[in-house]
């Protein structure tokens, strides 16, 4: 009975880790989807450097295709995406084009973009909480006996931005 209970507990914690990771990917998707919307709204696409947009597009494609790969790979790509999106945000928020910032829709965009960034940060925290709970269960006695029997391994923490 103990083996069955511990196994179920490990499975449940593993699913919590997977679920937390999928929450992060949802927020990234939401963040990426905002870009074309605001570009259409303010019609400032000609102001953006083409290379920046190309990089974001490529990273988005890479990120979407990496979702089937390891979590660590996903984390690496999201780190690159963060850098590119932050650069985009700086441009869109008027660092390069101060006139753009006065447009109301851009102000809203800034708020929403900050909101998605904050949600991603929140879900990273929850993801790491889930990983901590799972790894503790996998490594501490007596759960580690069952974990070893059924091949449960440590999950990766999301180090970036924490």
């Amino acid at each position, binding site marked *: *009975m*103990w083996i069955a*209970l*511990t196994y179920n*507990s490990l499975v449940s*914690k593993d699913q919590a880790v997977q679920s937390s990771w999928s*929450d992060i990917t949802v927020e990234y998707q939401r963040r990426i989807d905002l870009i074309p919307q605001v570009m259409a709204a303010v019609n400032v696409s000609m102001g953006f450097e083409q290379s920046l947009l190309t990089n974001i597009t490529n990273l988005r494609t890479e990120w979407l295709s990496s979702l089937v790969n390891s979590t660590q790979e996903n984390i690496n790509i999201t780190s690159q995406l963060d850098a590119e999106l932050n650069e985009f945000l700086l441009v869109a928020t008027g660092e390069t084009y101060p006139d753009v910032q006065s447009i109301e829709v851009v102000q*809203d965009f800034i*708020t*929403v973009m*900050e*909101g998605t960034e*904050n*949600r*991603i*940060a*929140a*879900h990273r*925290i*929850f993801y790491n*909480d889930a990983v*901590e*709970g799972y790894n*503790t*269960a996998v490594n*501490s006695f*007596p*759960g580690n006996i069952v974990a070893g029997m059924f091949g449960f391994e440590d999950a990766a923490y999301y180090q970036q931005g924490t």
Partner: protein
Amino acid sequence: MARVLRWIAVVAVVALVIGAGYLTISALFPGQPERDPGIPTIHPYVNDRADALTQYYEDWADDVCWELDQNNSCEVAVLIVNNTENYSMEYYALRTFQYNGLGKEGKDNGVLILVVTDVRSWRIEVGYGLEGILTDTRVSDLAAEYLEPYVAEENYDEGVLYLTAEIAWILVTEYDGEDAPPSDYPISFIPLTWIHWIIIAAIIIPLAIVTRGRIFWPLLWLISILTGGRGSFGGGRSGGGGASGR
């Protein structure tokens, strides 16, 4: 010799029972990750830890939140602090919301208004269930209109009251308080699933019969200690929704 063997057998059986009990309890109640130090436990509804509010306004804002809770179960809490320890304001608000479980479980209809006096900043953390009404943009606009001008002048009384009242009004008029999805727990305030209850019953009932009921109350006490109590709020969750500013 026979007596010694009998004692060894008894000790072995007792050790086996204790060991099996330990394994079962460790599987039923796995340890929880430690909480961050310095994140406050708050009570419904207004928590002024910076002595920024006069009693009159604090009570008024508290009444507004209480009325709202009675009206449609939304839980709005106010927390005023001098600083956020060594945490970012966003992290402090998120953890405070999470540890105190603002909003009802399953509805996630809580709101935390955090004001940090040392830096005259604010953060409004919105529960999952209210993100459709209190969008990031709307929350930002509300704070810009009802809180920021007053906080800038250190007039926390009016800022907190006006913002709280406006959020309460929006929630009274726009939140329909849909029924929460069914809880995973048959007794909602005790975090044990059906399988847990069945196992506990399978242990308690035979023991109660053997001990003629004497084991029942100590075991019940042990379970209540292990499961712990919930805070005064309803166990809601947030995921970083809301806005912040100064």
